[in-house]
Structures are given as C-alpha cells and as structure tokens.
C-alpha cells in the first residue's frame, strides 16, 4: 500500500520560479551564456537582471508553431549563433514549461552542433512547489558535466532541503496566503535601536544573508558596528556573519571575500563566522548555538538577511530588529516573535553586478539619525 504523504497545503500567492533558480545556479557556476529554450517572454525580468551580473541570457523564442511542430531547429540555430557571437567557455541550456511539456530533447541539438565547450543542459520547468528543484536539476547536470564534485553536489542538496524547510516553517511557504507588507517605519525602528545602544545595552549583530544580497544587508551590520563604536559602546556589540570564504560555488566565495574586504577596511571585527553565503539555511543554527553558549543574557539582536532561519530558542527574550527583503516575510516574522521588522524593498536587483557593499535604506537611516545622537 503506498504511503500517503501529508497533503501539501494550498499556497495561493505565486512562488519563486524553478526556471529562474536554475538560471541563477548557472550564474553561480560561472556560465557565460544561457539559452532559454522556450517562449520569448519566459523569465524576462530575471533574464534581463542576470545580464547585470555578467551572464548573457538568450531565448529560442518558441511560438505556437514551435509548440506544435517542435523547437529543435530553433535551438540548433540559436546554439550556433551563440557560439559564433559570444565565443563562450561554458554554455547553459535551460528548459521552460512550454518546451518541457512538448518533450523537447535539449541533448539532440547539442549532438547536432557539437560545441567545443561544456554545455550544461537543464531540463526544468516552473511546475514545482519549491524552486529549489530548479537548483537541484541544474546541479545534477553540472555534476554530470564534471563541473562540480559529488561532495559539493551532496552538500548543496542538503542545504537546499533545509532552505525549503525554512520557507515552509516560517517563510513565504508557511501560509495559504501572505499579503505583502511594508514592515515597520525605518526611522522609528532606527530610533529605538540607537536608544538601546546609547543606554549601553549589549547586542548581537547578525548577518545571515542569501548570497549576493549580503552586499546590501552587510551595510546594515556595518552601520550598527560603526555607530556603536562612535558612541563609545563598540565593545557591547558582537558581530556574527555568514561570510566563510572557503565554502560555496565560485561566485559565492568571491562575493564573501569582497564583502569581508570592505568590512575589514572599515574596522569591522569578525567575532564569529557562522557559515558561508550559501549556508543561510543552517548558519542560523550555528549562530543560535553560539548565542546560547556565550551571549544568552544579551539585550537585543539585529538580524539582517534571512531572519526566519534563526531558531527562536535563545533569542526570544531579546528585543529583535530584523531586516528582510521580502514583503511577504513580515507577517511570519512578527508571528515568530520578532519585535521590529523592516523591509529593504527591491534589494536583489541592486546587488547584481556589484563587488562592493551597497548602501541600504535602514543603514542610511541609522547613520543619519546617529548624527544627532
């Protein structure tokens, strides 16, 4: 008798696309050009944004005729043109809902064209509840091409499984419908935080961010550390960051190094490294453990990035200042017990194609208000 899984609850608000997740994974693997095999409009916004991060994204532009008669010729043509025009060292081909439903074999076109460089073929569509499937399918292809090791693949799979659980527990997959929310007013929250610092209260300054979003979230941790230092209470702040430069796919390590360098230059102290930029689903556990061991009597915590990945156990008695970039994350965070939740709107596009820390709204607010402190 087949074992019935617990029926997955309905989620009405749209969820991140697995096709897009595959695109970003290919970016993390330093792919030069990706061909989207499907309709011209598929993944348009992110296809455009990824150009800012140095990865070209083109499409085979399948239309009704393509759906009905198949798209192999179109893919062959685009693959040939891509090789001619961009002379890429690594190519990706990503499926879409349309091409996958009609059974397009991405491999057939590669066999016909015979490129001299590795081609990562990702047979993915957006019909998965969890976009982490898109990452896994892309990584399976990368593994097959020999671009990542079996060890790294297993590590990524474990992280992705945990990331999915984090979203189900307290994230955007935790409710049937989540209304976007602007969060608390930044100047009010900044005011309270400054008050606590001036009173000599002790605080944990946590960066637990997802990959390149750390370029902006780190600005907040930097602002907190700098201001505390300026006001004479630098020793009351403990910094915990997920900037381990020795783990993750090539781009993640690079970015971790870039952010660490920027922070170091401003005198930021790295009291605890809680993990890498792709370890945000589990780095929170490390932070929580350290807090339980050493800092359980602290008064407040600033958590920038993915605050809902931190277990509440050792922080529930602190005043929590959480910064997220997801308007749908506000309600779940408040329900978890986060005192203040602030949203950095539209953060992701601002952290593409950058190699230095980018100013955040909350950071800017803190710095401005600290001038009068």
């Amino acid at each position, binding site marked *: *008798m*087949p*074992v*019935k*899984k617990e*029926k*997955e609850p309905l989620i009405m608000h749209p969820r991140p696309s697995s096709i897009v997740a595959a695109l970003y994974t290919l970016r993390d693997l330093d792919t030069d050009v990706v061909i989207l095999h499907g309709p011209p409009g598929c993944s348009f916004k992110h296809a455009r944004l990824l150009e800012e991060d140095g990865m070209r994204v083109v499409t085979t532009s399948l239309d009704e005729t393509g759906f009905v008669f*198949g798209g192999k010729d179109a893919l062959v043509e685009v693959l040939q043109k891509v090789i001619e025009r961009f002379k890429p060292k690594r190519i990706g081909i990503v499926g879409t809902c349309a091409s996958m*439903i*009609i*059974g*397009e*074999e991405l491999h057939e076109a590669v066999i016909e064209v015979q490129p001299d460089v590795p081609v990562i073929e990702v047979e993915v569509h957006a019909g998965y509840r969890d976009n982490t499937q898109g990452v896994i399918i892309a990584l399976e292809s990368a593994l097959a091409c020999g671009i990542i090791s079996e060890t790294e693949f297993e590590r990524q799979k474990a992280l992705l499984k945990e990331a999915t659980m984090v979203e189900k527990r307290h994230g955007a997959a935790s409710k049937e419908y989540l209304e976007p929310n602007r969060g608390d007013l930044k100047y009010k929250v900044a005011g309270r935080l400054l008050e606590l610092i001036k009173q000599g209260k002790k605080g944990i300054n946590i960066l637990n961010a997802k990959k390149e979003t750390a370029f902006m979230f780190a600005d907040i941790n930097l602002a907190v550390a700098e201001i505390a230092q300026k006001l004479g209470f630098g020793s009351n702040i403990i910094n915990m960051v997920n900037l381990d430069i020795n783990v993750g796919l090539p781009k993640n390590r690079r970015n971790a190094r870039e952010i660490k360098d920027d922070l170091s230059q401003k005198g930021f102290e790295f009291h605890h490294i809680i993990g890498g930029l792709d370890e945000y689903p589990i780095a929170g556990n490390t932070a929580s453990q350290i807090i339980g061991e050493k800092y359980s009597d602290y008064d407040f915590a600033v958590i920038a990035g993915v605050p809902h990945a931190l277990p509440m156990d050792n922080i529930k008695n602190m005043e929590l200042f959480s910064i997220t970039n997801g308007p749908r994350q506000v309600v779940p965070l408040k329900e978890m017990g986060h005192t203040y939740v602030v949203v950095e709107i539209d953060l992701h596009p601002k952290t593409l194609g950058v190699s230095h820390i980018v100013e955040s709204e909350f950071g800017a607010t803190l710095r401005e208000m600290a001038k009068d402190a």
Partner: protein
Amino acid sequence: MPKQIAIYGKGGIGKSSTASNVAAACTDEGYRVTIIGCDPKSDSSITLLQGRRIPTIMDLMREDVDIKEEDIVFIGYKGVKCVEIGGPEPGIGCAGRGIIVAISMLKKLSSAIEDTDLVIYDVPGDIVCGGFVAPVKKGLVNETYVLTSGEYMPLYAANNICKGLARLDVALNGVICNSRDAQNEEIIVSEFAKEIGSQLLAFIPKDVLVQTCERDGFSVIEKAPDSEIAGVYRKLARSIMEKRVGKIPEPLDDKRLRELTRI
C-alpha cells in the same frame, strides 16, 4: 542487458493484444518479462492480470504519495511484471507529458526494467506528439516493431510511424501483420516490410478466440494454451527473442503505398 522492445501501430490494430500474448508466451518459455503500458487507457496488462486493472503511475503521482516500486509493479501471469503509466481521461490535459513524466520516474524507481530478460513498451496508437516516443528518446528501448494489417489506413499509419522513427534515427526490427482478412494481406504487408527496409516477422490470422479470452480478462496463452492462435504467438515470441538486427526504416510515398494495397 535486457531486450527492450516497443510496439507501434495504428490505434485498434491489436498492439495490446499482441504485446500481452507475446509477454505470456515468453514467460512460458522461461524468460523474465516486464510489460509497460504507455496508453492512458491502461489496457495493456489486463489480460495478464485476469481482468484486474492496476493503479497507474500517473494516478499515484496525482495523489501525491511517496511512490515505491511495489506500488506500481504488479505480478501477473506466471510472474510477468506489469506496469501501467496511466494518464488523463479523453479530452483533457496532456497524455504525452504523462508518458514523459512516468518514464522518468520509472527509470529512477524501478529495477523491473533492468533485472529482466524482456521489456515490452506498449505505446498508444499514433505517435501524435513528443511524449509518445519518450521510451525511445530516454534510451529505454533498443528494438522497435510495427504492427499493421493489409488495409490501406493501418499501412498508412505504419508508414507514418516509420517517418517518425527515421527522423529519430531509430532502427525498426520487424513488421508484424495482424490479419483483418483483407485480400492478399500477407503478400501486401510482406512487400511493404521489404520496401521500407525491414521484414515481415509474423502473420497473425484473425481468430475470434483472442477476443473471447480478452473479454474474460485472459490471454489465449493462459486460457487456450493449445489453440492454433496460441501457437502463432509462441512462434512470434521466439522470433522476437532471437538476436535481431534492426535498420532505420525508409518510409514510402503515398502513391507507392496505394499501389501496394492494390496488389
């Protein structure tokens, strides 16, 4: 490496009857056999399971259960392993996509297509979309057969299927004639087979016994093992199990096809 065969042919021409009787005959000869029904009608394995309809892969997927091999592989006549892919009811959804998805899952989940001597993929009538050649494209089939009668329409369909196979660079291993008592049928189909670069593997005479047994949910091999028609299926089974060389078919043009049926 098991023999992995797919039987193609016009809808209603007798693929499922042939497939299930060949499966039963091979089992009688001592081979380990797995039959995979790829038609949403899910009727490939009924006569091997005494009329029982088994749960399909797509039905289980729809219920969102954790699917294990024992949930989709069922043991039939003398140990034949039976799997039905299933799919949507007529007029809705996409059966072709169902085949693609189910074949993928089968590859991951089941040893029934590896630990065996013969795998038979019983595919839907006409290859109407990309999904229907999923078993071939996903590397699960190493021999193909086309079933036809001597009438023009089934031959036209068989020829059309050969166009598909040729486009995919897939070899055809034989043509089987399922008789409809048409005039000069055996000669016509034999000639057709030769001209497309293959050969007539067997001529199955029309026998009402096949239908009578089917109605009760049995193959003739099981219900009427000593009948003449059972003998024909046994002979076909032996032919198929021999080492067989395939060749990419050369489809005929319509004019030649019409000429053939006027022999």
